[in-house]
């Protein structure tokens, strides 16, 4: 079973002041993410995630499976695809199953989305992510349990 995680409508809710940009970014399919591989502490091998048809304009999601890479960076996890941060691909990724199978997060998994198009979505425990954002303005990010982003596909 596949669960969408962050839908385009959620993206728009996350960036209410910037709906057009959110749609534009989502429709491009990729957020550029340029952190060199060498800077990551450890890897979890590529994982095939079933990607169902996503209701996003301009996205080539015909393939049944897309390889994502979950990378552990300190105690925060980031999701990328072929060197790019795949924010909009998260719309249809079975991230719940992925995290249960591959991430050693024992607490409830939280998601943080920064108000920046170049920043990755980050996954981690609430405690960890709050620590990461300890010096950040509360208006500059959205932090929520992953379960809030997950809606079972009909």
């Amino acid at each position, binding site marked *: 079973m596949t669960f969408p995680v962050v839908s385009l409508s959620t993206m728009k809710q996350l960036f209410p002041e910037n709906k057009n940009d959110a749609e534009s970014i989502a429709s491009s399919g990729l957020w550029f993410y340029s952190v060199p591989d060498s*800077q990551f502490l450890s890897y979890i091998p590529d994982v095939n995630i079933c990607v169902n048809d996503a209701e996003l304009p301009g996205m080539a999601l015909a393939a049944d499976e897309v390889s994502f890479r979950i990378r552990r960076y300190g105690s925060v996890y980031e999701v990328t695809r072929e060197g790019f941060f795949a924010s909009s691909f998260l719309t249809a990724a079975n991230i719940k199953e992925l995290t249960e199978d591959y991430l050693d997060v024992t607490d409830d998994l939280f998601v943080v989305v920064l108000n920046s198009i170049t920043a990755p979505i980050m996954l981690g425990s609430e405690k960890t992510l709050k*620590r990461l954002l300890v010096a950040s303005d509360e208006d500059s990010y959205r932090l929520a349990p992953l379960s809030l982003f997950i809606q079972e596909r009909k």
Partner: protein
Amino acid sequence: MELKTLWVSQSELEGIWEALHEYRFSHELKNVHVENLLIECGVAESRAEALYPSYERLAVSLGKPDGAIPLKLSAEEYSCLANIPLGQELKEILS
């Protein structure tokens, strides 16, 4: 919470991480500041990437050859770190 920013390189961060772990395993009682410092070490690089996109350039200005990572520490955590056995090079960061 008022925070102090301590700029460290990747290798310095690893050194602090190891020192914290050594301290943790050699003491029976859990020290909340040590636990928080370990969490901080775990998230510091992600913070640098996500919130300080030009941190590599900053690293050059700070003379850090392998990146400059901001550790955000409370006064109590800073004091705790200063009292943990660290190598001379790491002690100099705190001075």
